[in-house]
């Protein structure tokens, strides 16, 4: 008898769970729009909210810091920031989880998919900064060995760049796996005696570069401009075979340097249309490399809060940011 009643209880439990699920299914008969999935924290307590995606490098944080400060203090918005890697950020933008990406380094596949095909994302114009990725050695090392700045001589110096992580080869330090990189293919195709070691995140890479610099040790790293770190650790670019349009078409066969990319802003299509003052302001936001570096350096090196850094920059550059505010 004992087992039978347990079994009926069990059936009842299962039945009620089933009923619950059915109820859920019934109540959910309408269509759910996966392209309108705002963050639960947005527009809370009567405040208008803009959600910005923050990329992990400090330049993007500087863009966001200044935009955030103006949105908050001058336009009366509440700003939510979410840190997401570059490609998932495009997806989040298309779903409306974030309203804007402030600095994109070029993702042709994503542009095709979301802007041209699905039309859920629209371009937001230039940031005003041109980005360039390359290989760098510290200037103190380049001065002592001027010929290291040509890729043809890199093999000669491989032993100087050796670390415990690179085995017997020289170490080429890369950063986060999310960053645009052809380094593994380049090392292979240019017959270099190097091993690409991924630091795993920009933070780890910066920390390591600063440590090397403190000891005046030689190192070779994937790095990019604009970047505040150049002010602290001067670095010299290593010349790779020149970039020509289309030479990076086949990722396996790349043998050339990285291009110079004018960095772009992108908005969720719905936000661009109905985002009011916030969207109008973000569209007009455009500043120079020097401006961005100034704010980046305050945030990352002087450890100021992004808010304080933005405040200081705004105080010194009134004419620039006043021009971004929506007119009327």
């Amino acid at each position, binding site marked *: 008898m004992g087992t039978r009643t347990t079994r009926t209880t069990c059936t009842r439990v299962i039945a009620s769970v089933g009923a619950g699920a059915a109820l859920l299914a019934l109540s959910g008969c309408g269509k759910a729009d996966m392209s309108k*999935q705002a963050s639960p924290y947005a527009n809370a307590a009567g405040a208008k909210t803009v959600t910005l995606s923050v990329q992990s490098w400090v330049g993007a944080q500087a863009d966001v810091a200044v935009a955030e400060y103006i949105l908050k203090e001058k336009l009366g918005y509440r700003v939510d920031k979410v840190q997401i890697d570059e490609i998932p950020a495009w997806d989040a933008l298309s779903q409306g989880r974030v309203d804007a990406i402030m600095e994109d380094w070029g993702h042709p596949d994503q542009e095709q998919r979301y802007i041209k095909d699905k039309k859920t994302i629209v371009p937001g114009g230039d940031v005003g900064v041109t980005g360039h990725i390359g290989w760098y050695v510290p200037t103190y090392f380049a001065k002592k060995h001027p010929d290291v700045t040509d890729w043809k001589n890199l093999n000669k110096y491989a032993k100087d760049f050796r670390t415990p992580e690179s085995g017997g080869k020289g170490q080429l330090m890369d950063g986060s796996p999310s960053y645009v990189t052809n380094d593994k293919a380049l090392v292979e195709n240019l017959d270099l005696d190097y091993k690409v070691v991924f630091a795993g995140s920009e933070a780890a890479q910066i920390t390591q570069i600063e440590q090397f610099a403190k000891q005046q040790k030689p190192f070779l790293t994937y790095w990019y401009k604009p970047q505040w770190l150049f002010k602290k650790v001067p670095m010299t670019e290593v010349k790779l075979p020149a970039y020509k349009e289309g030479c990076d078409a086949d990722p396996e066969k790349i043998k050339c340097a990285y291009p110079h990319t004018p960095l772009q802003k992108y908005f969720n299509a719905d936000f661009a249309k109905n985002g009011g003052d916030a969207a109008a302001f973000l569209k007009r936001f455009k500043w120079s490399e020097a401006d961005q570096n100034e704010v980046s350096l305050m945030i990352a090196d002087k450890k100021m809060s992004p808010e304080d850094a933005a405040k200081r920059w705004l105080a010194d550059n009134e004419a620039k940011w006043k021009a971004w505010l929506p007119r009327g």
Partner: protein
Amino acid sequence: MATATASTPVRDTGIGALLRHRAVTKLLLLAVVAAVAVPIVNAKWASGAWPDALTVDLSEPLGKASDWIIDNRDSHPLFVYFLGHVSNAVVLSVRGVYLVLLAAGWAGVTAAAAVVAWRVAGVKLAATAAAAFGICGLLGMWVPTMQTLALMTVAVLASVVLGMLLGLAAGLNDRVFRMMRPVLDTMQVLPAFAYLLPVVLVFGIGVPAAVFATVVYAAPPMARLTALGLRGADGGVMEAVASLGATGRQRLLSARLPLARKELLLGLNQTIMMALSMAVIASVIGAGGLGDRVYQALASVDVGQALAAGIPIVLLAVVLDRVTGAAGERLGAQTEDTSVFRGWRGWSLAAAVTLAAALASRFADRLEWPTSWVVQIAEPVNTAKDWMVDHLYTGVPVVGGTADWAAHFTTYVLDPVRDGLQGLPWWSLLLIVAALAWVIGTWQTALTAVLAMAAIGVLDVWNASLDTLSQVLAGVAVTLVLGFAIGVAASRSRRLERLLRPVLDVFQTMPQFVYLIPVVALFGVGRAPAVFAAVVYALPAVVRITTQGLRQVSPAAMESAKSLGATNWQVLRQVQLPLARPALLLALNQGVVLVLAVVVIGGLVGGGALGYDVLAGLARGDLATGLVGGIAIVCLGLMLDRVTQPTERRAKKGA
């Protein structure tokens, strides 16, 4: 835990001999199997690493699957009529809780936390709770704390409901119980990092994905403990209730569930702790809140700011742990409450106080935490970190700097272990795994372990997995040496144990990410910092279990050994350690699981191998790399768990 260590002490000598005997039999059997199989296998696929002929390339189907999901997410019925609603429901409920918390204002929330703690756990914890929330505000983290709290509330509720349903089914039905156990075991061994990607693909970046990842991680302890509580119901009481003519449902509601109250509360406690430990990992997929602040601060190498966001997580964890723990103890104590505020009166007073505080802050227009009350701790912390880095990194006389240690550790420990593992013929590794798992467990556990290891080969990530494995082994070795040493010391001195307790609490609840950047600053980029971060994270659990295990060795046994003239060292080695063997094995098992969980996050600081694959998959939306890496981590976890798990499973993860 108590059941874990109490049962074995006395029967060691007899069983021990038998066990050794049985182990020999098992090994002989295995040797026979190997003698037959190895020559055949070796003739067919002679290669050191896993043979290519036995691999499956999943990158194309997985890539297609991921494209399909992204292209059909806005139109396919599965999403439009089901997953979309689930996602909306999560967003709505998180939003609802968040709005309530904001409406209550900081005063209301703090008051509510204090009075609830007072009602369930007494005055002392009420003060702790109020102080904890105050500190969250002081650190300038009020809004992120509320976001995390809202997300946690929903995730914990969902985990509890799901866990209880599963637990009910398993508690009432033997077959379900048997089927569910391996599933729950597996879920608890999975490092959370491994399954972020599939969740993200379905729900996109953001809160719904974070809640789901959290539920997968946090529901198993609830399910397990519910089932345990229901099955453990006193037979006599059940008999009595049945003889009174109660129906099945009545017996469940009026006898079984109430009798299982303690286990249910313990389950709730475990679920909350696991959910909180996910808060930061989930920030990688856009959960927002405190975890996101930790993650952002680390991106700008700002350890101070990361700590400012990490402390509220620790505080939330400590308060919730103590309050639910105290509630559990009170339930057991059965003391008659004689105060004026017992029962409904106490609760209505609590509600009134909360309401008053919320309204007061509303009318004073002080809903948000005042900015002038924020204390900046980031700067001094960073100064301290910089000092450490400047003075410890390299060139310290005699002992050498931390960077030198890391370099030596990499060259003399990690490299040889990795190269050794990768150099072994693949079938010999399978044999080693089989032997270890069989000697310590049953043939089923051995089979699971071998299959898990073989799956890694089939997925074509053999070398990367062995790289990760070498890091885990090195990390576990360091953790065990340190953990046993500290544990032995703590078991001999109550004072040391008391001193250690808050330190262990902090290290155990501090999000793993917070360790990552300081370890890079001290040890450079690479595998070494990943291993050290893992050691820091796994150490508290190992120390705790060791201390407790040694403490529970019967004093009589130790006394008699001493009276026979044994020295302290002899007592420890010949009486205490052998008698505490089950606890030490459990410590080993926990150490392995926890080290693996952090070593894979080490991908963020240059740990490479599987952690890097998962990270790269997440960052590039590349399901093939990420998912295969994730599955390999899961297989590695399963294998390691089975190899270190004594015959019967004894305790839960995070115990």
